[in-house]
């Protein structure tokens, strides 16, 4: 069995995997809808939401290599803008999402440009600073009702299709509806991120990441591209925030600015592999179900209230970090697959 695998076969493997992934993604909630176990659809929703946010974060963190620890402000801006547009102006959810994205990008550009003077960890603290400034604004600004939150009203009635058009699922269609809404946004964002990665923009981002001074030397305005990267992230987070707002039907400042929205997308990207397109997706698929599973088993029953599930969760994270510091996608998958099939790894075409 010394013959090398022809390139066409490798392509076939890839499209089978792709088709399988797409089928799973599309059909995932159906069996749960049948059995009435809606919760698992919501887990799917959370996975996709985190993956989406992770892809967004990957643009500024993975591609452009900047430390952004305060992306949740754009999640919050998105959620609040969409909520306000929906409540006060009666806008449709999708229009509100567009509005949220525009506002978020505009604010991001205005806020980020000045601080691009700072580099590395200094920049990181500047992003944290923005987050810390956002918190009392969220808690005390009466226009957004401060810490008492905004509530999005849901009109009664309306079927599934109506729900997809307005993000309102008054009845039991919530689980299914939001899963597919999130899947749609996720696919759009994934394709967009892939396009960015392969475009000139992607090259500029990576240049800034790998050697900022070198990039400047050949005429790349690092400050501009840092801002662009962050604004792309802000747009995605705003979309996520809008989706969250309509899912939770309530926007509270301490919840949309919660520290988890800062670190979870980043964690997903790191676990999967920083800078890789599918990294955050792998990361989200691993992290969310693990934490949900542990909450349901170790955090319940007689051990409840002791935080045992979080202890184990923390230990698992440390194990992954120590074992694969470059992310799980850095594992030599192709080699392993080849060894499993007892064939040498595919040699490049033409050899």
């Amino acid at each position: 069995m010394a013959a090398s695998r022809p390139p066409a076969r490798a392509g076939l493997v890839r499209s089978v995997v792709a088709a399988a992934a797409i089928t799973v993604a599309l059909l995932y909630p159906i069996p749960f809808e049948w059995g009435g176990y809606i919760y698992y659809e919501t887990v799917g929703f959370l996975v996709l939401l985190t993956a989406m946010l992770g892809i967004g974060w990957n643009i500024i963190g993975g591609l452009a290599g900047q430390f952004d620890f305060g992306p949740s402000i754009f999640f919050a801006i998105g959620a609040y803008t969409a909520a306000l547009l929906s409540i006060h102006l009666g806008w449709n959810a999708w229009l509100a999402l567009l509005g949220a994205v525009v506002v978020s990008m505009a604010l991001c550009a205005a806020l980020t440009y000045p601080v691009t003077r700072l580099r590395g960890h200094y920049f990181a603290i500047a992003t944290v600073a923005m987050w810390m400034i956002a918190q009392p604004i969220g808690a005390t600004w009466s226009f957004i009702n401060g810490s008492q939150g905004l509530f999005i009203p849901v009109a009664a009635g309306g079927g599934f299709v109506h729900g997809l058009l307005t993000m309102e699922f008054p009845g039991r269609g919530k689980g299914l509806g939001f899963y597919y809404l999130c899947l749609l946004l996720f696919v759009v964002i994934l394709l967009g991120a892939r396009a960015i990665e392969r475009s000139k923009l992607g090259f500029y981002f990576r240049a800034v990441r790998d050697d900022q001074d070198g990039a400047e030397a050949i005429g790349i305005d690092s400050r501009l591209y840092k801002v662009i990267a962050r604004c792309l992230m802000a747009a995605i987070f705003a979309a996520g925030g809008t989706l969250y707002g309509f899912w939770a039907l309530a926007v509270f400042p301490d919840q949309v600015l919660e520290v988890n929205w800062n670190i979870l997308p980043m964690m997903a990207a790191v676990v999967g592999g920083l800078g890789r397109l599918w990294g955050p997706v792998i990361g989200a698929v691993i992290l969310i179900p693990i934490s949900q599973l542990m909450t349901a088993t170790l955090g319940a029953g007689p051990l409840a209230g002791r935080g045992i599930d979080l202890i184990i969760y923390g230990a698992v994270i440390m194990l992954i970090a120590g074992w694969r510091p470059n992310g799980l996608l850095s594992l030599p998958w192709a080699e392993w697959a080849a060894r499993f099939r007892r064939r040498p790894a595919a040699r490049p075409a033409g050899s």
Partner: protein
Amino acid sequence: MRILRLAAVVVVLLFVAVQLSPGARAAGPVTEVLIGELLPLTGNFASLGQQYLWAGQTVEDIVNNDYPDLQVPLGPGKGFPGLGGAKMTLVVRDDQSRGDQARALAEQLITVNKVHWLNGEGTSGNTSIIQPLVDSYGIPMSCHACASPTLTEKGFKWFWRTGPNDSTMVASVFQFLKEWPAHGGPKDLKTIALFTCDNLFCQDNRKIAADLAEKGGYKIVADLTTKTGATTLASEVQRLQSANPDVLFLVQYPAETTVFQADAKRAGFMPKVIATSNGAYSDQTWLTAQKATSGAAGWLGRDPTAIDLASKKASWKKVNEIYKKYSRGQDMGELAMREITGMLWMADTINRAKSVEPAVLAKAAAETDMKPDQMIIDYKGIKFDANRQNVLATGVVTQIGWDDEKHTIWPWDLAAQSGFKPIFPSPSWQERETRSKK
């Protein structure tokens, strides 16, 4: 591409099938009543969540075991007599004080664990997030100790609350202050300062207090909203000091209250009256810690029951004993008391309904008319208005005395029973130090 087209066809077919299929239904007699407990057991609100958990475990114990002399619903006898002795089982989930977790786990409890009643979340903010969800599934839900008035004002059909909300709680304090001059109290309390943290709980209280203060003819000389988790309040205390209020209305969590006390002590700041509602005043550990320094003597606030009188009630004592089994020896705090009362009401309702069908439960809940003698708490009873809020949930106003225990000072009939003369003015820091050293 052919694979994709095939997949799309399959999806559409399955989709259609889903819309036509009925949901799963459980059948057969009920042997276990599942009560979902969705609580913040870790994260920022963990110190509250754990008390709710212990309260739940206490009620589970009371219902499932035979306590023949215990005069509370389902005390004697094992299980639910109305359901043939079925037992009560808590299904506990920790949402880490996060809204998204609360939302997801509520759905888990309802659709996977198929709980019959959802108890939670314990904080008003996260409870608001799960209300629309529970309403869409149509099972009963309660958060007895959640205090935000909005929870029962948004028209949710499945949310029941036996405990009072902030409006009634803060109103009791102001009612006491209003009636005090006629009962031997000071007649010259004119100015008030509001001192609250910046989250939902504190701000709800602040708005109500500001409103009542104006109506009561007080002049608001300072209205400071502080950062939750503040590490120092020295400047804030300075501002309060220069405003020189007669009454300080303070709503803060235990950690910030401790910081306030230390800073106030250094500055020598002590208004004539310190009034509060919930927060630190409801926290057992903070109250216990005050014993060493008499730091809370003279503080007055709202309580659900006349604790000094209740602890003479046999049922209160017995329930406290059971509670201490789960709380590692901590006495029932007032939060736990509200929650236990509510959950015992829930058990009673399930028992009266003789069913776990949501519609039947709702009907039994609506028909509730529980009398005070069956409760460990001083509500006038349990009876719900159209918003499913218990209208007989009152409370008392208590004050902490030099013995570092709470004494009832309002309403006046109960105050007469407790025989405690309110402390006025609030003792200075030097006096506290001298007296606590004795």
